[in-house]
C-alpha cells in the first residue's frame, strides 16, 4: 500500500470511528479511550527513534510536557484555541528534539539516553520556576463552555481530536518506516559504523527522526491540560510517560508501526482495567511483571510472534 493511500485510509477510519463512537452514552468510554490513545501517540512517537534507530529516549515525559505547557502558555497569554495549541506544541517539541539531537546524537546510544534524562530534569526545573505557567503551584486550564460540532461534552471533542492525532502519528511512523529514510535508520540500528561507511548520512537521519519523534510526543501533550483542567509539573513530567512509551513498543514489537499500536492498546487497556478492578499497589506490580516477562520470554514483542507464525505458515 502506498503511503498516500495508507494515510487516506487511516485518517478516514479515524474520522468515521470518532463520529460513530460519539453515540456511546457513557463518558467513561471517552476518558478511558483518551488515555489509551495518548499512549498510542507516545509509543508510536518513541518508536520512530527508539525502535527504528535503536536510540533510547528517556525523556518522553519532557517532550510530552513541552506540548502540554505550550498549551498552558498560549491559554494564559491569548486564551488561544486548542488547534493553535496543538500546532504550536508540536513545533516547539520538535525544535527541542532538534536541539537535543544536534548536541548529543554524535555520541554512543547510551549517552543519548542519559542526555535525554538530563534534559527532562533541566526542563522540569525551568517549568517549576516559571510562574507565568503556574510554576510549582500548577495551572488551571478551564474547558470552554461552547463546544464545536454540537458535541455534548468537551471530552467528546478532545477524544475525537486525540483519535485523529493518533492516526496522524501512525501515518508519519509508517511513512518513515517504508521510505529510504526508514531503511537508512534500520541500517543505523543494525550497525551504525557500517552504515556510515557505506555512505548513509547517519547524523542527518538520526536528527531528523529525533525531531519527528519528539514533535509527535509534544503533540500528545497538547490536549492534556484540557483533559485534566489542572496541570502541575510533577504530573506532567511523570515517570509513567517515559516508562510506558518504552514499555509499550517493547511489548508490541519495535520493528514496525503496528507494534507500538498493539502494545499501547494492550498495556493501556490493561492499566485502565486494573485501575478500576484490582484497586491497590498491585497495579504497578502488574506493569513491572508484564515488562519483565515480555522482554525475557518474547524478545520481539507480540509482532515477533506474529512474524514467526507467518514464517511458519509460509514455509
Amino acid at each position, binding site marked *: 500500500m502506498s503511503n498516500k493511500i495508507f494515510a487516506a485510509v487511516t485518517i478516514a477510519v479515524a474520522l468515521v470511528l470518532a463520529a460513530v463512537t460519539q453515540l456511546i452514552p457513557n463518558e*467513561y468510554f471517552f476518558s478511558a479511550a483518551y488515555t489509551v490513545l495518548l499512549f498510542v501517540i507516545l509509543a508510536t512517537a518513541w518508536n520512530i527513534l527508539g525502535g527504528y534507530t535503536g536510540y533510547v529516549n528517556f525523556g518522553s515525559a519532557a517532550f510530552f510536557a513541552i506540548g502540554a505547557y505550550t498549551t498552558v502558555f498560549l491559554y494564559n497569554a491569548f486564551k488561544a484555541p486548542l488547534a493553535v495549541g496543538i500546532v504550536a506544541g508540536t513545533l516547539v517539541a520538535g525544535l527541542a528534539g532538534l536541539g537535543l539531537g544536534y548536541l548529543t546524537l554524535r555520541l554512543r546510544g547510551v549517552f543519548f539516553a542519559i542526555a535525554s534524562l538530563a534534559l527532562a530534569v533541566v526542563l522540569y526545573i525551568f517549568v517549576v520556576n516559571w510562574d507565568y505557567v503556574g510554576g*510549582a503551584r*500548577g495551572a*488551571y486550564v478551564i474547558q470552554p463552555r461552547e463546544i464545536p460540532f454540537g458535541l455534548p461534552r468537551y471530552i467528546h471533542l478532545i477524544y475525537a481530536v486525540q483519535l485523529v492525532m493518533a492516526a496522524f502519528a501512525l501515518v508519519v511512523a509508517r511513512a518513515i518506516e517504508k521510505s529510504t529514510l526508514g531503511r537508512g535508520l534500520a541500517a543505523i540500528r543494525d550497525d551504525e559504523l557500517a552504515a556510515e561507511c557505506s555512505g548513509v548520512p547517519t547524523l542527518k537521519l538520526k536528527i531528523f527522526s529525533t525531531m519527528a519523534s519528539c514533535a509527535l510526543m509534544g503533540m500528545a501533550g497538547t490536549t492534556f491540560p484540557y483533559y485534566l483542567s489542572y496541570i502541575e509539573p510533577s504530573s506532567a513530567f*511523570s515517570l*509513567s510517560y517515559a516508562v510506558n512509551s518504552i514499555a509499550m513498543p517493547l511489548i508490541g514489537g519495535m520493528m514496525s508501526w503496528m507494534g507500538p499500536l498493539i502494545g499501547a492498546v494492550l498495556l493501556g487497556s490493561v492499566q485502565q482495567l486494573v485501575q478500576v478492578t484490582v484497586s491497590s*499497589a498491585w497495579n504497578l506490580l502488574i506493569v513491572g511483571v508484564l515488562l519483565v516477562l515480555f522482554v525475557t520470554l518474547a524478545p520481539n514483542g507480540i509482532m515477533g510472534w506474529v512474524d514467526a507464525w507467518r514464517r511458519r505458515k509460509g514455509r
Partner: protein
Amino acid sequence: MLGNSVLSTLRRVPGALFIGLALTGAALAQQPLKIGFGMSLTGPLAGNGKAALIAMEIWRDDVNAKGGILGRKVEFVYYDDQTSPATVPSIYTKLLDVDKVDLVVSGYGTNVIAPAMPIVMQRNLTFMTLFGLNVNSKFNYDRYFQIMPAGPNPAVGWSQGFFDAAMSMNPKPKTVALVGADAEYPAMALEGAREHAKKTGLKIVYDKTYPPNTVDYSPIVRAIQAANPEVVFVASYPPDSAGMVRAANEVGLKTRIFGGGLVGPQFAALKTQLGPLLNGVVNYEFYVPDVGSRFPFLEQFLAKYQARAVVEKVDPLGFYLPPYAYAMMQVLEQAITATKGLDQAKLAEYIHTNTFDTYVGKVGFAKNGEWAAPRVMMTQYHGITGNDVEQFKKPGRLTVLSPKEYRTGDLKAPYHENKK
C-alpha cells in the same frame, strides 16, 4: 481500537441504565446508597490516602450500625488514583456512568480534586472534598465544599496564627525569611506568607524555594542565617520538613520564631523521628490532645482509628487527616437526612445555609465552599524527650498559641533558647 475491558463494560451499560430507570420510589429505598471516590492508595500521598479511607470506612460502619441513611445501607465504590491526576477523569466517569454511584466525594489533595471538577460540574453534583487548596478559586462552583479548616482565604488563613504569634513578640520583629519546597502546597502557603509580610510591614530578607528531593538542607539554612531574619516561615512536605528541622539544629539557627507551615510533624512518624529536635518549633496542627476536652467524640473515634492504623501500617496517631475525613462524611450524612433525598441542588443549598455538628466541632461553609472561618491551630513544641510515640498521645507537649478560644499558653521566643 479499544481494549476488551472498555467494550465489555459498554455492553453492560444499557442494561444497567434500564434497571436504574425501572427502580423508583419505595423500591429505591431498599437499594444501598453508593458513594464513589478515587483515593491515593499508592504513590507519594498514599499514606494520607489510606488513613482517610480508614476514617471513611469507620464512618460507613457507624452509619450502617445505626441503620444507614434514610433507611439505605451505605456502600463505598472506590479506586486507587495512584496519587496521579491523570487517572482521575476516568475514575470519576466510571463511578458515575458505569457504577452508577449516588454521590461522589473527592480523594485527598488538590492534585486529584481539580481534575474531577469539570466532570462534577457538568452534572451539577454536590462535591465534598478533602484537603484541597483553594481549588474553587478558578472554578467558582457553588456546589463545591472543602473540609480542611483553612478558612475562606486559605493562603492567608493558613499562616495567620504564625504571623499573629510573631507580631506578638516584644520588641516587634522587622525581618522575615520565607522558604519552601517547589510544590503546590508550599507555593500557596508562601504566597499567603508574603501577603502577611506586606500587611505587617515585615521586610522579606530571604525568599527562596528548593526542590523537594534535596538531600542536604544545611546550605539553605546557612544562607537563611546569613540574612539574619527574626522570623523564619517554612512551608514544606514531610521529607523536607525533617530535613529543614534537622539542618536548623545542626547549623544552630538563631532566630526568634521558626516554622509555620511544615507538613509532617502532624504525623507520628516525624514526631517520633525528630523527637527533641522539634522543641521550640512553631507549627500548625488541626488537632492536638491538649484541646481534647473540646472535641468530646474524637477520643472514641481515634481509638477505633488507631487500632486499625497499626494493622494497615499508616499514621498511628491520626490527628491530622482522619477526623476531617470522618467529618466530611458527617456533613454529607446530615445534609442528606435533612433534605430527605439526593437532590443535588437541595443538598448544596442545605450545606451552604446550615452549620454542622461534627467530630471536629461546628462546621459552616463560606460562599466559595471553604470553612466560614479559619481554625488552623498554631502550636509550639516543648519538653520533648526521646523518641517515644506515647508522649504525643497525651496533652503537654504542644502549647496552642492560637486561635484564641483554644489557647493553652504563650509563645516562648527566641526559637534557639528552647533548645537548652
